[in-house]
């Protein structure tokens, strides 16, 4: 049996360090929000003869497009972002580019007004809060029969703490990616975060389920709580790793072969779900023991 609970301080420290690092990154650089949250235009073009980013930028600036940012995509493509424009202006820009740089194919155009952006932002925040609340409620309900030696609501709290770790680290990672690779946080990222929440709590629940079962078997032997938890973690270890691994296999396939637009969506999921396995084994269960010990000490 692997002694996971015995080294609980190390695991909790690592998790704490990861979270703190993420918080530092986010507060330092913030997140780079995509146009679905800020409003704006996104234009993906494929050039017969691709101009340099600088040429394109200076030309668009002289044409009066505001806040242009340009990113090369693949061999022929360019991704342009600028202020939200109406259809006439959009056509003018296309025509202008065609005159200037020859053959241009428009692959994608999105223009999102500021109202819609604001709405999506609010919705994104609401939906995250709602999911978290639902999950706390569900766990509290699922563990309602287990109240000794740890109260059922504590399972819920710890599961949520593990969750915050699972979504906090991808958010931190996207702050870094946003800063250095121009990766944006868009509604797909929110979807990824919500999925991570749903999926990774699943992992934690499986471990806790095992604890619940073993506690019942132990028939009130609360003295060895840490041993029971450690045994439970070991029993579910293979399962946690294996299910996460199969899911990650599918996600890695999406990341490498699924195309540009779902690439970072897949990355967020890979990181979040991978961490989900870590947190259920190395955070949730040690935290359970840790809390129980604190309570114990207080009692004594």
């Amino acid at each position: 049996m692997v002694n996971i609970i015995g080294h609980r301080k190390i695991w909790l420290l690592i998790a704490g360090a990861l979270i703190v690092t993420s918080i530092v990154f986010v507060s330092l650089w913030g997140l780079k929000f995509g146009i679905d949250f800020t409003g704006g235009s996104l234009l993906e073009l494929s050039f017969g003869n691709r101009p340099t980013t600088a040429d394109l930028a200076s030309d668009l600036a002289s044409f009066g497009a505001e806040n242009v940012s340009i990113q090369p995509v693949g061999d022929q493509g360019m991704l342009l972002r600028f202020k939200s424009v109406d259809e006439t202006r959009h056509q003018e820009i296309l025509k202008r580019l065609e005159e200037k740089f020859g053959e241009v194919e428009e692959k994608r155009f999105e223009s999102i007004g500021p109202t819609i952006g604001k709405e999506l932002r609010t919705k994104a925040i609401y939906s995250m809060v709602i999911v978290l609340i639902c999950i706390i409620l569900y766990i509290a309900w699922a563990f309602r029969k287990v109240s000794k030696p740890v109260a059922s609501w504590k399972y819920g709290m710890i599961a949520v703490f593990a969750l915050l770790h699972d979504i906090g680290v991808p958010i931190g990672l996207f702050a870094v990616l946003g800063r250095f690779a121009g990766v944006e946080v868009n509604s797909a990222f929110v979807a990824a975060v919500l999925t991570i929440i749903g999926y990774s709590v699943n992992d934690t629940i499986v471990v806790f389920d095992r604890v619940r079962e073993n506690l019942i078997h132990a028939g009130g032997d609360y003295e060895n709580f840490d041993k029971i938890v450690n045994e439970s973690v070991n029993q579910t270890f293979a399962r946690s790793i294996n299910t996460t691994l199969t899911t990650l296999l599918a996600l890695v396939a999406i990341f490498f072969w699924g195309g540009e637009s779902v690439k970072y969506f897949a990355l967020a999921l890979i990181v979040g779900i991978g961490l989900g396995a870590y947190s259920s084994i190395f955070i949730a269960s040690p935290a359970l023991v840790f809390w129980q010990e604190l309570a114990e000490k207080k009692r004594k």
Partner: protein
Amino acid sequence: MNKIKRFFANAGKKLFTTARAKVWWLIILILAITVLAGFLDYPKYYDQGVNWLKKTTGIALPEFYKLPFRLGLDLLGGTHLIYEADTSAIPDKDRDDALEGVRDVIERRVNAFGVAEPVVQTTSAGDSQRVIVELAGIKDVSEAIKMIGETPLLEFKEQNPDVGTMQILTDEQKKEMNDYNTAAKKTANEVLKKARAKGADFAALAEEYSADEATKAVGGDLGFITKDGVYSDWYDDAAKLKVGGVSSLIETDEYIGILKVVDIQDSKEVKANHLLICWEGADRCESDLSKEDAKKKIDELKTQATAKNFVDLVKENSTEPGASESGGDLGWFGKDVMVKPFETATFEMKVGEISDVLETQFGYHLIYKDDERTVKEYRVSRILVDKKTASEIAPPSEEWIYTGLTGKQLVRAQVQFDPNTNEPQVGLEFNDEGKTLFGEITTRNVGKPVAIFLDSEAISVPNVQEPIKDGQAVISGSFTIPEAKLLAQRLNAGALPVPINLISQETIGAALGQESVAKSLIAGLIGFLAVIIFMILYYRLPGFLSALSLIFYAVLVLAFFKLIPVTLTLAGIAGFVLSVGMAVDANVLIFERMKEELRLGKPLGSAIDEGFKRAWPSIRDGNLTTLISCLVLFWFSTSMIKGFALTLSVGVIMSLFSALFITRTFLNFIAPWFHKGAWLFGIRKKNSTKQI
């Protein structure tokens, strides 16, 4: 051989009775469903089989039921448009109705594009009401946007009894106004600073900042302005400047202006009186004199006229309206104000002279030149920064109010001709609702005008003579025949009940869509294979069974996508691939439990049962939490994320089914043959609880 015979005999005997038989039936059922679902997913091979059968045996079977996948815009190419309907002019209770009207009209328009399954939906978000238009596979998005946007807006309005009452601003509105104007002032100061900087390009600044749409594009150029012209308000400020000078801020209630004088020129102005004798038929003439008589009369007056009695002569004789008061005084005027012959004559005369008889389109004139002077004209450019006035924040109630009768109730429009004047008109025919409404409107407005608004402009304001109950109305607005035809065409194609505004557009080129389909197919396949290979390597025989159930799972989920139908988007496919990874989860849970039971030395059959029983609470809890996330995601409702949430939910539900029902049936099916194959189940011979 004997063994097999005995096997079939046994099977036959126990065909409907034993538990074993039940397993057999279930296996057959599962296979049958898989094959059917597989054909539904990909009917090509079935159809080839049917063709082959027909060729070789002559037996004709029908081809398989064809149901295409419904692909989202990002895979098919196309556009997703969100329009905001401006229902602010409409009473609250009629808003939903008006929005439905917009939807119907846009739908009619959109159907004309020949796009397969266009989507036109209404939604409300907070206060704003929207119409979402999805056109999949459309080639010319720009043209489509133009056609939807050009759908005419037709409204019938009646007079507002309390027109023009000013509204009193609330504190909030006052704050809004002040904030706006403070910001305007700040901007104006910044612009002024830039305009006064060395080497400043005033024209470029005007293009960037000016709120005056009319002159913005030409760098704010107003041309030469005069003391009495259109821009006379600006004359005094311009007069203070030299060429190249930039004014300080010129502030009024409506705007803050910055002026630059580009050029100054001198120009002559004259002051004159004139006497007019017109003849019947001349412009604006109310006299019944013939041209000859008019000529005789003016010749006579010419002989009498002197500088002294000129004004009196005008007062007595001039046919110009109001001349008896004004004495024909025209005041000061410059060039390009009067008709050409009149201008030339006046400018060439000397001060104090009376002209010869002069003929213009208005009649015969005698001109007395009072005075002349030289004035300066300034060529100026300006930048306007907009301010808000109280009436802009809370506009005075409008002259015309909404009646509920709009393009929505229109059945048909056609070109017809006024029987009296033979002018082209557009005749309108309303539906029953429109007939009733029009009847009511005309009844309560007899003797009063009712205005017909097209694209927010009153194009015809007829007086109601008597109530009109037959639902026929006419727009007569001095059309040419082609204009009337075009209008009728546009109205027939649909007239909007309220104005709309495009606030969001997402367009995906068809090429990108195809690329995405290819990519996601490859990604899906690789992901699927990777999962299967992993399962077989790690769990051996059960892994192989779970791979089979995973294939069943995938085939069935795809069939469900067609049947429900689920719109497949890139994110949706990602959701499906993800669900494949997750579908294994339940299997893994069960197998791990099963292994534990086997290690405890239980026989395979009861290990299977126990494994399923014990794994169930975990499976249930885990999948429910994912479903909760999906539900919320579905509510979070951009179409991309909806697709993901939907495929993932379908996937999760199906994975439960496949693990609990199919994997279990497979395991039960093979259990009797593998009593001793511990290796096949991934167990070391020696019982041990130690792992990894």
